[in-house]
């Protein structure tokens, strides 16, 4: 079972062991999906926790990202007399890049850390071992529900983020800076494409990010050294590793999907 803490060796082999352990752990999680069906309520509870509880931060951040993006674009585009295109640029940049990436980073900070801390504390207080003693599969009961919840929650959160960004852009652009309302929407609808921007950009990317972030969070939780210091260390590592993974994966996905 790959839920044992990875002993730290030197930096390189340590990092490689992390990556390899993570990959093996993904297989363990996926293999446990059929067994976790009997814990559907647990999955639902996790969905509530990582998804519904993250709505506030996602909505507020989405609104502000849209607003600040519009403000910046307006000033740059006014040099060229192209302010009417700013709504379109806000939508495109949010759908293709900012939406999935910022949502994933926020998700890693909001949900990933708490998943790691919770599982890590379970490990530190021997609850995981207790489950095994009671013949409850900790992967199927603790790991997979959280992974599935993250997988479902991320695309939905990303959609909410993008919608709020567009509204934020509309708020600043139309009501404050005086871009024409019809121009704002028609320029946007003329350029944004359902398949390349919404499906490939918003949904596919956020699905991949959701999988990566929750995988790292759950893995770090299960491999936490069973000390209070270890929990703190694992939580930090979740944020660092997910951030790097999100941005690197974003580049790869963009290169493939564009």
């Amino acid at each position, binding site marked *: 079972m790959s839920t044992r803490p990875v002993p730290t060796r030197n930096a390189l082999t340590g990092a490689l062991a992390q990556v390899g352990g993570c990959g093996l752990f993904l297989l363990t999680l996926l293999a446990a999906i059929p067994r976790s069906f009997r814990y559907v309520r647990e999955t639902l509870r996790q969905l*509530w926790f990582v998804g*519904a509880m993250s709505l506030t931060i996602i909505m507020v951040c989405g609104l502000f990202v849209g607003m600040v993006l519009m403000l910046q674009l307006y000033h740059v585009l006014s040099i060229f007399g192209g302010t009417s295109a700013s709504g379109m640029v806000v939508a495109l940049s949010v759908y293709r890049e900012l939406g999935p990436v910022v949502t994933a980073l926020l998700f890693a900070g909001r949900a990933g850390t708490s998943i790691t801390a919770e599982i890590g504390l379970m490990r530190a207080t021997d609850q995981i071992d207790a489950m095994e003693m009671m013949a409850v599969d900790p992967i199927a009961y603790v790991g997979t529900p959280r992974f599935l919840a993250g997988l479902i929650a991320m695309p*939905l959160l990303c959609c909410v983020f993008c919608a709020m960004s567009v509204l934020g852009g509309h708020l600043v652009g139309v009501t404050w800076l005086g871009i024409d309302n019809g121009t704002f929407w028609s320029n946007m609808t003329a350029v944004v494409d*359902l398949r390349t921007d*919404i499906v490939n950009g918003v949904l596919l990317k956020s699905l991949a990010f959701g999988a990566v972030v929750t995988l790292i969070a759950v893995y770090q939780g299960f491999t936490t050294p069973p000390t209070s210091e270890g929990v703190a260390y694992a939580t930090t590592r979740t944020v660092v590793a997910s951030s790097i993974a999100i941005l690197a994966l974003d580049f790869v996905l963009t290169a493939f999907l564009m």
Partner: protein
Amino acid sequence: MSQPRNSYAVGTGLFIVLGFAALVYLATQTTSVANTHQGASYIVDTHFANIGQLKERAPVKIAGVRVGQVQSITLAPGAEVADVKLAIDKNYDKIPLDSVATIFTSGLLGDQYVGIVYGTSKKTVAEGGTLALTKPAEQLEDMLGKFFGAGGMADNLGGTYTVTATFSNVGTLSAGAAVKMAGVPIGSVQSVVADPVKLDAKVTLAIDNRYNQIPDDSSAAVFTSGLIGSQFVAIQPGGSPDALKNGDEMVLTQSAMQLEDLIGKFLVNGSSSTDKKDAGNGKPGDKSSDTPSPTTPAGKQ
């Protein structure tokens, strides 16, 4: 974590509903799907000699008001004109048969759309009917060329059916650029290399085998998509009964026009490079050069 069961079930339900509502909102209100209000519409056929950058789902407008969209753009093998199908709202079924379909550009750099200018005929065009009168998209180079009298410039060249063409100037044309006929892509540029002896650019065009009935006196020209777009090779069909075949020679090419050259000519009377081109045609450019410009764009080149 200690919430009673129902509160998180309701909260999760709300979250899922909100997420999907946001997705539906993004997909329907902010994408081009918002434009495809496919109500009852009927199809009208048009044929354009050149569609420029017209794209599928581009708007069809009457008096500037959107009445439908471009359904499909095809180029039949062997044909010289692009077949454009317009899906027009059933509410606007009184379009006179002699109306003119024209490809316009929104602004200088905007997207292109099909505008229908009403004729006077009592007969109206029916479902599946054809609007016979069309006006193709104006290419900026064509217009500038006519204006400066440089439209008829031609160089000699040789080629094969991956046709090679020789241009005295290809501008920023690069391998992979499109080869278009009547505005529809029919192939791509395979390579652009400088000829070490003739000191001009040798361009290899790979043309789709379906288009094997291009007259062998057709000309190839390097055009720009819009004012600042990428460059492509446009093939303008000639009138010869014989078709271009693998190993055949195209005899007419028109090199890329440099915007700086043209503007320079427009502003400054008689830069040395104009002599050649002015010899071939009228000199409308001379009229405008009566007022010398304070700037000297020739220095930019």
